[in-house]
């Protein structure tokens, strides 16, 4: 039985005809391609800009070294925790490098590498994870929002900031990063809807790295791809190989350009893989097999670019060596910066709760001060 055959479904039962309804139509294609967009290893690589690719290569190698150094710092007890982006460096770096100075980056807790690639001092970027304060930098100075630990909650902030900038007539784009798990959160959906309704200059970058801690994508969503989620909100969805930094660059650049020119938001799903555990506190062997990890190793973002650039004569062994040495310098500086014991002031506990200290906090601050003085005298 079809709907039309159901009793009462016929138009003759209506006392009046409903008014005509017409769907909104948009010429812009919303549906993502069925396969992730790729450049490296395809004909599209013929148009690579050698200068840009050398820059990306150097940043990828530095990014990989940064990940290794940060992980080592957790083992030395210098970082409380570190969520690695080994395997995801292409997403992190492209996200940072496609932005202009005046643009804003909205990272999640996993995206310290993007913040570093945007120029933030690594020690400042790692303050949250070291534990001496929550945000180790002035967000306005760097135009990097505080690293967000609650999932997807920074996405509506990106929308509001981009909307406010446009209201003021400023040329600002906001790029907001979220993981595959974060796309299940309500704030993800509300942010996309607001951005599309307001035509806000925002780019949403989903790094689909396969797992939300231990839960695989198949248990996270029934959608064909996460990029498909864009369609329902009325914005383009793009599917891209997140390990192909040339593809990431093209897709992100196009989305940023669309946002900047008033074309509204874009949702990008970068298909990538988290090579290491969720954090050093996680045991990835409980939820995935070696074969899967090995298969992704063959599709490593640094190797992909290195092979392409070497084959095309854009870099040679000497250039690779120089890049690696440069990364070692960065790692040494990071080690040195992190090995200095951070100076924390207990009175900071009360300093930044309100613009004006409340009586209650003044009393509690006095109590702590007395405790500290007693400790000093003991």
């Amino acid at each position, binding site marked *: 039985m079809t709907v039309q055959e159901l009793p009462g479904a016929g138009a003759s039962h209506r006392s009046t005809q409903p008014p005509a309804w017409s769907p909104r139509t948009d010429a812009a294609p919303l549906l993502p391609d069925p396969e992730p967009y790729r450049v490296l290893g395809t004909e599209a690589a013929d148009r690579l800009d050698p200068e840009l690719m050398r820059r990306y290569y150097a940043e990828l190698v530095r990014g990989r070294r940064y990940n290794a150094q940060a992980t080592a710092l957790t083992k030395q007890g210098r970082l409380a925790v570190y969520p690695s982006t080994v395997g995801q460096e292409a997403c992190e770096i492209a996200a940072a490098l496609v932005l202009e100075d005046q643009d804003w980056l909205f990272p999640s807790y996993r995206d310290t590498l993007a913040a570093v690639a945007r120029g933030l001092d690594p020690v400042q970027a790692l303050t949250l994870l070291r534990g001496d304060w929550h945000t180790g930098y002035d967000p306005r100075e760097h135009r990097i929002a505080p690293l967000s630990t609650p999932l997807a*909650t920074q996405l509506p*902030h990106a929308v509001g900031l981009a909307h406010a900038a446009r209201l003021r007539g400023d040329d600002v784009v906001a790029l907001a990063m979220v993981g595959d798990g974060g796309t299940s959160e309500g704030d993800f959906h509300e942010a996309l809807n607001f951005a599309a309704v307001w035509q806000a200059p925002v780019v949403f970058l989903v790094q689909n790295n396969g797992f939300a801690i231990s839960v695989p994508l198949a248990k996270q969503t029934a959608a064909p791809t996460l990029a498909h989620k864009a369609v329902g909100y009325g914005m383009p969805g793009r599917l891209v190989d997140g390990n192909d930094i040339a593809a990431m660059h093209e897709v992100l650049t196009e989305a940023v350009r669309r946002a900047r020119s008033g074309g509204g938001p874009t949702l990008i799903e970068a298909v990538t893989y988290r090579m290491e555990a969720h954090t050093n506190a996680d045991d990835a062997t409980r939820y995935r097999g070696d074969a899967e990890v090995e298969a992704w190793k063959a599709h490593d973002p640094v190797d992909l670019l290195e092979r392409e650039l070497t084959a095309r004569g854009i870099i040679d062994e000497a250039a690779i060596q120089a890049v690696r040495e440069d990364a070692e310098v960065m790692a040494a500086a990071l080690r040195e910066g992190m090995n200095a014991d951070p100076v924390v002031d207990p009175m900071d506990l009360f300093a*930044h709760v309100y*613009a004006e200290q409340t009586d209650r906090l003044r009393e509690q601050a006095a109590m702590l001060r007395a405790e500290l003085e007693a400790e000093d005298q003991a």
Partner: protein
Amino acid sequence: MAQALTRAMRDAMAEDPTVHVMGEDVGTLGGVFRITDGLAKEFGEERCTDTPLAEAGILGAAVGMAMYGLRPVVEMQFDAFAYPAFEQLISHVAKMRNRTRGAMPLPITIRVPYGGGIGGVEHHCDSSEAYYVATPGLTVVTPATVEDAYGLLRASIASDDPVVFLEPKRLYWSKADWRPEAPTVVPGIGKALVRRAGTSATLITYGPSLPVCLEAAEAAREEGWDLEVVDLRSLVPFDEQTVVESVRRTGRAVVVHEAGGFGGPGAEIAARVTERCFHHLEAPVLRVTGFDIPYPPPMLEKHHLPGVDRILDTVARLQWEN
């Protein structure tokens, strides 16, 4: 009171181009209570914006706008409709100043019509203040008079900190000899006021319960009680000095509010008064609150809300005998 709130937003928007009003139905309709009436017409839809219906999105977007230097004034249509925005409120709005060591304060005003007494059906009458006062970083104010509706809302919008501005729904239609062309200057956020001087006990209250307490104080005269009534006006910061001075004068105190008693603001206030006034007290600090129940259906709400009789019965218990 409704007109005073509207006027406060209008004046703030006229003086400061960074003030933006946003929420569901605030534009063309002027809000379901008409509190934003005329603002979209006068300042344009960019400054008084009808948003999609999603409270987390509304408040989350306001966070981003405030990060960029605007002063958003957000309307949460009813108390219980604000709950989807709690994560934004608690994890971001309340903490952004602290997370960034003061580099990024968020001057957002969150207007929440709250409380009962208007015959609203369920999810329209919650007294949600305990949730807000338990969150460090939030300022929480609630006007009980027309002057305060204007003055406290102006102060809230001007504040560099996020303010939860609780509007007692049942006082929206309360009238006063208030001249919007020359608003009375009222004390700012964080100052309680003695609304009625008295000698035999202090009623400590706020928001929708203030008129009830004033009525009870009048009625108590027949019983020989001369009640002082303190209107807190601001729950965070809490004006301990005014409250303590009053209770030390009278020696007896009753806290009155609509919210449930267990874990309600009255519990905190009673504890503080006890700590600070122990030797001045002739009786334990008592509380008159809503029952510890989900807000009842409209036909039963009169049994739930603290009324004059319940306040008088409690005041009578202050004649303490061991």
